[in-house]
């Protein structure tokens, strides 16, 4: 198997090298990829959509269908992780152990009796319990709000600077993942529960598709944001800019929800009570 694999890989590499000889050199301004449709995007983006960042305007306006279905792919991946891993019902363990954070006292709760303890003071001891680190917890606690603020900035400022829904959504998702890595999964679940993350991703896709459908209702083509000029101030060109913003918000919500959802399912093996 190993030699067969090596032969296949070398053959593929040889074919690729053979094809590369006809490719344009690195950094060639006249390469075929930058001659046909991309000059039009660059020259017309400010004129047609009032968005200086060509990447954003191409992503959400000129190639809006592509991005909509990419968002759907991300949502489907989240659903697939959920369906594969989530354990719906699970027998409660015979006894649970809790540890008081300040004094280090440990006590046991017998056979499935439900008691509610303030998790700020008590932590459950699982099979994968690890001692919490004071410095990491404190640093992350103060860092996470700023990370989330930066994520919102990246989403909202994607028109003028590098950024947009995908990047900002990943930053927001990473902040929740950082919370669950630095503290534990329970703390992250208290901040953003399973239901919240599972609702964020379809709701983001719904905002995207709903913006497109709104254009359809107003008498234009699907995802033709000029239609929004009837609802928003600023004329048809600014309406395209506003439409791109709406869509980016949808993408950001979908990406954030899905990242957190996938992480929680993977980290806790679908059980949502143990794990990181």
């Amino acid at each position, binding site marked *: 198997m190993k030699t067969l694999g090596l032969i296949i*890989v070398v053959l593929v590499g040889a074919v690729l090298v053979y094809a590369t000889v006809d490719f344009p050199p690195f950094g060639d301004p006249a390469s075929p990829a930058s001659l046909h449709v991309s000059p039009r995007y660059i020259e017309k983006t*400010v004129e047609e959509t009032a968005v200086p960042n*060509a990447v954003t305007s191409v992503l959400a306006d000129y*190639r809006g269908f592509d991005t909509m279905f990419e968002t759907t*792919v991300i949502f489907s*991946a989240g659903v697939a*992780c959920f369906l594969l891993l989530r354990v719906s019902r699970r027998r409660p363990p015979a006894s649970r152990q809790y540890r008081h954070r300040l004094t280090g006292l440990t006590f046991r709760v017998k056979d499935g009796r439900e008691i509610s303890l303030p998790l700020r003071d008590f932590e459950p001891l699982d099979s994968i319990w690890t001692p919490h680190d004071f410095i990491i917890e404190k640093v992350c606690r103060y860092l996470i709000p700023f990370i989330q603020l930066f994520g919102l900035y990246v989403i909202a400022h994607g028109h003028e600077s590098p950024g947009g829904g995908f990047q900002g959504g990943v930053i927001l998702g990473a902040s929740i993942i950082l919370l669950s890595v630095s503290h534990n999964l329970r703390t992250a679940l208290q901040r953003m529960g399973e239901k919240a993350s599972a609702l964020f991703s379809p709701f983001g896709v719904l905002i995207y598709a709903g913006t497109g459908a709104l254009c359809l209702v107003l008498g234009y083509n699907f995802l033709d944001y000029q239609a929004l000029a009837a609802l928003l101030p600023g004329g048809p060109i600014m309406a395209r800019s506003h439409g791109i913003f709406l869509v980016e918000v949808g993408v950001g919500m979908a990406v954030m929800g899905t990242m957190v959802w996938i992480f929680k399912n993977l980290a806790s093996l679908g059980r949502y009570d143990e794990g990181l």
Partner: protein
Amino acid sequence: MEEFLRLIIGKYNYWIYITLMMIGLYAMIAKNNLVKKIVGMNIFQTAIILFYISTGVKKGATIPIIEHSHDAAHQAVRAADYINPLPHVLMLTAIVVSVATLGVALAVAIKVYHRYLTLEEDEILKQIREP
């Protein structure tokens, strides 16, 4: 000889992506452990991303954010001054989708581990063939 060297140096981005792609493909085919196969898949995706991004580069051009000001009259925009935005758009979505597919692949690996208690491909095949 000189022409050959110019070929090597002038297209070095392609050689890097071909090398990465071969590494990823070999890991996907030949590695026995499922997690290593997933890592190989990620290296393969990275090679594709590198290929696309490097085709968008133009010498002497800047990032595709058009220079603009609120008061000045409309200036002509030259496409040669800005790099190609299209590969960036395609890879922007591809990166996030690759993270999502990585999540699904790891979920499947977890299920396989629960069923067969191993992630080695040959041991899984042995268990399937002789139940």
